[in-house]
């Protein structure tokens, strides 16, 4: 890639820049600053579309009373029960149980606090799903 071929498409990097290695007129390699590349942005957007779709699905299941709000926050933080368990210090099957609304509503406040601190939110928000 020549330095004038380095893509400069404003996108997901926002106001940051990144370094790309390219050759100058004499064929020498130099680091070149780039604003981003549309191909990358598109692939990245697709990944987020998939994640956001999953979050929305979970959200409606929570609203329908089929899952506890914990499921929503878990999804929002790109986690599965195993990973959330590692953060909160519970086993995977215990986290899975807490995804049931009936179990979740009876959880002790210490347990809720652990989850809330993983997600950087308050216990009240954990119970409600408000953003």
């Amino acid at each position, binding site marked *: *890639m020549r330095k004038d071929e380095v893509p400069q498409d404003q996108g997901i990097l926002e106001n940051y820049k990144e370094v*790309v*290695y390219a050759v100058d007129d004499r064929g*020498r390699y130099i680091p070149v600053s780039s604003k981003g590349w549309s191909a990358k942005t*598109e692939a990245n957007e697709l990944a987020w579309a998939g994640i956001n779709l999953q979050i929305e699905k979970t959200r409606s299941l929570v609203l329908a009373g089929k899952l506890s709000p914990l499921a929503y926050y878990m999804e929002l933080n790109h986690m599965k029960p195993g990973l959330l368990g*590692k953060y909160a210090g519970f086993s995977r099957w215990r986290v899975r149980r807490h995804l049931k609304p009936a179990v979740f509503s009876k959880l002790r406040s210490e347990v809720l606090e652990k989850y809330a601190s993983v997600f950087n939110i308050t216990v009240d928000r954990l119970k409600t799903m408000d953003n």
Partner: protein
Amino acid sequence: MHETFTHQHHAHCESGVFTSLLCHHGVEISESMIFGIGSGLFFSHLPFVKVYGFPLTAYRIAPGGIIKRVAKRLGIRLKFETFRDQEKGMFALDQALADGRPIGLQTGVFWLPFFPPAYRFQFNAHNLIVYGKEGDDYLISDPTLDRPVKCPSSDLKKARFSKGFLAPKGKMYYPVEIPRELDYRKAVSKGIREVCSKMLNRVHSLVGVPAIRALAKKIPAWPQKQGEKYAAAQLANLIRMQEEIGTGGAGFRFVYASFLQEAGDMLGMDELLVLSQRMTKVGDRWNSFAYKAAPVCKGRKKGRAVYGELRDILLDCADQEHGIFNDLRRIKI
């Protein structure tokens, strides 16, 4: 101390961090040199390891591998520490900073507030440098960003102790002993030899050129086998692994080409310069793969024909790389 630390902007986090750390200690070395000596270039496609639901595709060696190899090959002694206890980990960081050292850290990116939001995934093998502390904020030099940033201690703690695949466990590191004379010739030779043997592996098709071929051959069947939608998502995932932040574009091929050029100049070996040019061509080819694949991901372009073209591009990359590493292997350094 931090008045004396200079932030540097690099293409890739791990090689960037190590370059900045060495420069701080007076070693003049480029990122591409570190990447080459550390045998950073790689290819691997592991269908049975899933990340975010997609097969793991790596264009570089396992995290931490570059630093470890460069240190060994140049005779640099590093201190590595990991922690069980988060408080102890933060305390040790403060202590080391008080001694006036910039510190390399492995972190997760999901919890870093300064990181571009589009890149905040649960990914645990990011590297950055902490070079000071102001009140509750750590001063951070993230080599993939164009300027130094600040990070509150609670967020940094979370990032250092993020969980899951490749969990950093608070890992911190810094050089403790750097030899006055560095033997670049030997280090370059070792770095090149390892890359060649890995890329030319003939035992299985999970690693190296055979892995590129194996992946290429699977691509045309994706839309039928997995449905258009999942096939597109999988393509997008390939591009992301190839191009996303810290990979410096085209799966590190350009960084490696830059290394070959620098090594050729340093050792006065024109053969390496020629190979550098060939490596650049492969990098361009990988780039064109991403260009071709992106519209398919977005659904702007449909049709199975594109998948066939993509296979051909990858097969071409594989052939070219096979030739390059075969020739590179034969060069006596």
